[in-house]
């Protein structure tokens, strides 16, 4: 696997595909045209129209106040949604792990869980007392200490930093930890 292909695959796995949006947009554009085509054929054959004759349809839509504004509003709405889908990166909340032989892309939940485990282990807490949220560039680790036993933030920061170094994720993440003021009795 060469570098370019590897990069392309990694990108694919970390971004949402636009194919669904594209096919929906195409159907929205195609349906009125298909209808007009059907009406035109019926007109040519001299059969009675399904709803109205082709030119009459256009007249009705542009002539009726409510219908005209309705169609315009729908068009604006669809356009806005499509523009947003087109220009936002559509990231999926995943990171790539460094590996020599394979392409490894993991969900951010997995990274959060790994960081929680590292933080809780260092602080001497149960796993469920650490929670982590992972963004694209940073992770926030929050710890609930055991009452009476202080947690060293520096130690936790060092542990999460080491974990991130070990995983070597890209785009790289900076972890920040926080020890909650209120503790929990017992462990």
């Amino acid at each position, binding site marked *: 696997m060469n570098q370019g292909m590897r990069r392309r695959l990694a990108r694919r796995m970390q971004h949402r595909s636009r194919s669904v949006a594209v096919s929906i947009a195409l159907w929205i554009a195609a349906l009125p045209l298909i209808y007009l085509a059907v009406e035109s054929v019926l007109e040519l054959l001299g059969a009675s129209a399904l709803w109205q004759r082709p030119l009459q349809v256009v007249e009705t839509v542009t002539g009726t106040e409510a219908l005209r504004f309705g169609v315009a509003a729908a068009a604006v709405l669809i356009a806005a949604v499509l523009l947003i889908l087109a220009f936002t990166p559509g990231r999926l909340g995943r990171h790539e792990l460094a590996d020599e032989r394979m392409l490894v892309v993991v969900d951010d939940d997995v990274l959060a869980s790994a960081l929680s485990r590292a933080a809780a*282990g*260092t602080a*001497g807490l149960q796993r469920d007392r650490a929670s982590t949220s992972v963004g694209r560039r940073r992770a926030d680790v929050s710890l609930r*200490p055991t*009452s*009476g*036993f*202080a947690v060293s933030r520096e130690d936790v920061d060092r*542990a999460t930093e080491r974990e991130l170094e070990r995983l070597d994720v890209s785009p790289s993440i900076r972890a920040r930890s926080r*020890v*909650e*003021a*209120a*503790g*929990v*009795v*017992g*462990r």
Partner: protein
Amino acid sequence: MTAGRVTLSTRAIERTFGALAAEELGVPASSSSVDLHDERGSLAVSVSAPVALGRGTVLEAAQAARQRVLTDGPALTGAAIASARIRIRSLHEAEPRRVR
């Protein structure tokens, strides 16, 4: 990272504080009961126990028990104590009669 870890169970911490207070109050450790709460990350201890008669005033005994929990509690368990409350539940004779 060093392998393994020592943890004290909540029960062990409670019994330690209870025993410390009971000793100052002159009653058996088993007669005390302890409640632990969180106080901004430290422990709020409340001990409820009887007191033995004939050891100064009840208030002095209670005060001594409180002091004992506050000083020896953290030394023995390593837990930070924010506050300690002693509740005297009843009065006992100094030498509890042996039950045969």
